């Protein structure tokens, strides 16, 4: 049994350069993320937040340092981590249910239990009635819900979300953020969420990694000691605003 207090994701002096070292995308990132923690990565473009996410996902390789997941170093895409992007990236010729089943299909022939799990996950993201709809028949928000269900179908307990609701309107996004908190809370998943919206970052997270550009680095890790479950009204409280100020100061905006 793994100890709950042991970090699920760690980074030791992680760096990433592009163009033969000419561009430093990420420099000396150090972090420990305990199980079940919700981490937000926030910062302006070029601060390396997407790079860090892709490094953890094993989609790119670190130039220096090491990232570990569940205690083993990341060397490529793996089963215990799943990623979701700003675009839903659904296959248009598959129904919502068939899209959710894709990760399973790529590993083995789906069993009846896999199929039932996919159906349940669609229910969990609020699309129980749309299991047999095609992506073109769904709204942008609904497509992102399918993408979230597909991410959960992988069974990964580390979820990497790269501005997952960034392309949606404000109301839909706030609503989906609340749903996301409920779902990852129910599953006890460790979540890393990239955003450039400071309030959103604080509202969702247990820890905010404030990142600054040129070179990209984690300037500060801000703890968010606000109680859960979180309600939208939280954003008008003095404690919340104090955290916003703290993040903005780190970003050099005040």
């Amino acid at each position, binding site marked *: 049994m793994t100890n709950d207090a042991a970090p699920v994701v760690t980074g030791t002096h992680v760096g990433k350069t592009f163009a033969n070292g000419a561009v430093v995308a990420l420099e000396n990132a150090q972090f420990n993320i305990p199980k079940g923690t919700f981490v937000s990565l926030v910062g302006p473009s070029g601060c390396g937040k997407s790079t860090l996410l892709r490094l953890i996902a094993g989609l790119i390789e670190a130039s220096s340092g090491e990232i570990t997941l569940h205690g083993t170093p990341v060397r490529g895409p793996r089963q215990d981590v799943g990623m979701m992007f700003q675009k839903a990236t659904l296959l248009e*010729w598959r129904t919502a249910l068939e899209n959710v089943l*894709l990760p399973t299909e790529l590993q083995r022939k789906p069993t009846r239990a896999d199929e039932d799990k996919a159906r349940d996950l669609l229910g969990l993201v609020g699309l129980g009635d749309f299991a047999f709809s095609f992506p073109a028949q769904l709204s942008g928000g609904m497509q992102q819900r399918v993408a979230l269900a597909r991410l959960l179908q992988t069974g990964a307990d580390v979820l990497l979300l790269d501005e997952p609701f960034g392309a949606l309107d404000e109301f839909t996004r706030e609503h989906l953020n609340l749903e996301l908190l409920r779902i990852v809370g129910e599953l006890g998943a460790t979540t890393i969420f990239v955003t450039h919206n400071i309030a959103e970052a604080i509202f969702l997270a247990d820890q905010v990694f404030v990142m600054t550009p040129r070179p990209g680095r984690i300037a500060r890790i801000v703890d968010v000691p606000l109680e859960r479950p979180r309600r939208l009204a939280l954003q008008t409280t003095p404690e919340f605003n104090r955290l916003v100020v703290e993040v903005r100061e780190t970003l050099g905006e005040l």
Partner: protein
Amino acid sequence: MALAPDPMGVALRRGLTHAGLFLGLLLLWETSARLGWLNPLFYPRPSDILLSFGRIYVTQGNVWYHLYVSLGLVFTGFLAGSILGVALGSLVGLNPTVRRFLQPYVIVLEATPRIALAPLMIAALGFGAPSKIAIIMLVCFFAPFINTLSGVINVNEEKLELFRALGASKWQILRKLVLPDAVPVIMAGERLALTAALSGVLVAEFIQRDKGIGSLILTYTRNLNMASAFACIFTLTIVGFLIFKGMEWLDRRIAYWNHDADMARVSARRKARWEAR
């Protein structure tokens, strides 16, 4: 009387206008021919064409055999040519090295009118069905080849990254992403190919006049039996229209996700399959 025009009435009136205009044109043609304004040698009367239809389809009934021969060639050549096109298109599309070396030849061949090679096919394969099928294959090959190639090359990068992140094998990426993603553009190529096949069979039969609807047109024209030639040409018009509609039907079945009504149909079917599992 209703003030707002009812849609049914509008459609009916429009249909009647079209029919009236068409009948007027036919009447004009018939009268001009009867009055000797048109040379009857080249422009037969509509009534004569109608009589020829009756003769070649009913009393003499000879067109059926030729139609059967031609359509047989069309479908054989089309299937062979387009399957070859799709297969080679995928192969070349998936292999960057092959693509780089093959590219110049593809450009040269694409710029060459394929029909120009028809006599060479006869020289190589002799008279008979094989050379005719080869000519049709030649005109059918390129559209599916080029479309498959571009469909396979232009795979959505984000989808590709998703598959990689999910640990998909190369074979899975091909079968579950690249090929289905290319289906609509491949189908567009197939539509062009089948239309080309119809022209191809006519060229093949004009060069080798033994049987088939192309030979029949040539024979009638040489005998100055223009009414029957026109009946054959209109037959081809109908065949062409049916082919077009048929391919449209097939496209809606295969690339259903591009058509709202078909999506709803497939959706209902998958739901039924799930419930019956």
